[in-house]
């Protein structure tokens, strides 16, 4: 699956009624089986862009096209949210099954798929737990399973690990790569964490702030797995420093603004 974001812009009505441009003329493609990470300072509209790709926000201008569907239908988009958004009244199992309930699959098939995905994200034994009984990391695992179980054409992740503590986050990043290898979905991933971006991405798209524009696109020339190994550290750090250099001024501006 390939996604073409074509001259997309988004304007909001600001607090005083005058239009605020959140995104301006963004052009970007996500290739088949490509892991694209959007980085930028807070307020650069990266989540806005992701929500538009997911159909949860309408662009003011431009269009977003999904190409390479094998049938004539709307693409199935899998969304993973920062705050997960598990239904508190459903157990892990039933949360993961949510997206399958209205599908044509038989109950047995649904159950089997749910079981496989619970295993995939390592939540076996917690099928009957309620979200409030889980740790933050486990909740996000459930969120990822819920998204993958519907076999989406496209995976969108909105800062999925930024509510987690640093240690859990590192483990979840490794975990995500392992899970991603199993599905190889075209992925758009939003983060403000540069290390995370360099660790995960095939390609990094840097956005500027107000209006959000694509400042730069970097191909990450490192092997998919094990980028935190010592032999890659020089190159890894080079990417991080370079991106930080691109974002720094905007981030400082964002900090000054209340």
């Amino acid at each position, binding site marked *: 699956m390939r996604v073409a974001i074509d001259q997309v812009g988004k304007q909001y009505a600001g607090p005083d009624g005058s239009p605020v441009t959140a995104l301006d003329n963004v052009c970007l493609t996500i290739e088949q089986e490509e892991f694209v990470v959007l980085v930028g300072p807070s307020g650069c509209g990266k989540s806005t862009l992701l929500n538009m790709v997911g*159909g949860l926000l309408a662009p003011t201008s431009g269009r977003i096209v999904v190409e390479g569907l094998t049938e004539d239908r709307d693409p199935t*988009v*899998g969304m993973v949210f920062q705050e997960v958004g598990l*239904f508190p009244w459903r157990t892990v199992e039933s949360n993961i099954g*949510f997206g399958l*309930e*209205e599908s044509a699959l038989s109950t047995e098939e649904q159950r089997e798929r749910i079981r496989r995905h619970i295993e995939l994200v390592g939540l076996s034994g917690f099928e009957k737990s309620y*979200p*409030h009984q889980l740790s933050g990391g486990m909740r996000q695992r459930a969120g990822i399973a819920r998204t993958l179980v*519907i076999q989406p054409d496209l995976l969108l992740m909105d800062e999925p690990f930024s509510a987690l503590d640093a240690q859990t986050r590192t483990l979840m990043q490794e975990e995500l790569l392992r899970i991603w290898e199993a599905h190889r979905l075209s992925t758009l991933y939003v983060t403000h964490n540069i290390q995370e971006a360099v660790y995960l991405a095939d390609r990094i798209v840097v956005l500027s702030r107000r209006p959000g524009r694509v400042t730069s696109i970097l191909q990450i020339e490192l092997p998919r797995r094990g980028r935190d190994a010592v032999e890659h550290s020089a190159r890894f750090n080079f990417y991080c420093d370079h991106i930080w250099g691109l974002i720094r001024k905007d981030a400082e501006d964002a900090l000054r603004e209340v």
Partner: protein
Amino acid sequence: MALFQREVQFRLAFMERKVSRWTGPGGIAILIVFWQAVCMSGWVSELYLPAPTSILKTGLEMMASGEIAVNMQASLQRIGWGYAIGSAAGIGIGLLTGFSKLAEAIGNPLIYSLYPIPKIALLPLIILWLGIGEVSKITIISLGVFFPVVINTYSGVKNVDPLLLKVAVSYRTSRMNMIRKVVLPAALPVIFAGLKLAAGTSLLLLVAAEMIAAKEGVGAMILHYGDLMLTTKLMVGVLVLSLLGLVFNRILEWVERRLIPWK
């Protein structure tokens, strides 16, 4: 040089103080004993304040004669139907006005202009319209139940976490299923707050309606014995109402625990 040390005190202990489960019943027991003592001392005439023991004795007699059963049955039927109809309508319309912008635009001005009218004031009108039988009593109770439930349901729906709606939309849930699977459960805690409020209102309207126009029912019984100055029997009626309210609340709490296990 002398060195001192002092242990750090837990300064929030007062918030975690354990209270025995008998403290509550104990409080009631003390009140009843005091009441009994006042009556036995002869300060107050039995006509104005009957003693707890004579209320209990009369209550048992009235139970044996079947008088309480007859009146309770009449009252329970009215309140049962009234509460069921009022709360079902309240939840249904509340979900609709909360979820649909059109229903909200039409419904809210209507609901909020009818809400402040004390429902008892409508009783004569309703009796005129629907006659003096059961229908008018059930209607007035339904009306009283409807408003707190509809308003709570509406605000419950309005306060559903938008993230959960986004999740449902991103899995392409249909509108109907979105209400059933997401909006209703998410609003349930607030809906229950409304249902509990309505329980009190329904008792109030039950008694009022029975006092105005009924031969049977706990309210009618209380009014009857009040007219005859049979204070002890009147107090039995009051006690029955208090127990009825208590049981009603317990049932609602039980249902709430069953329906909202995730809280």
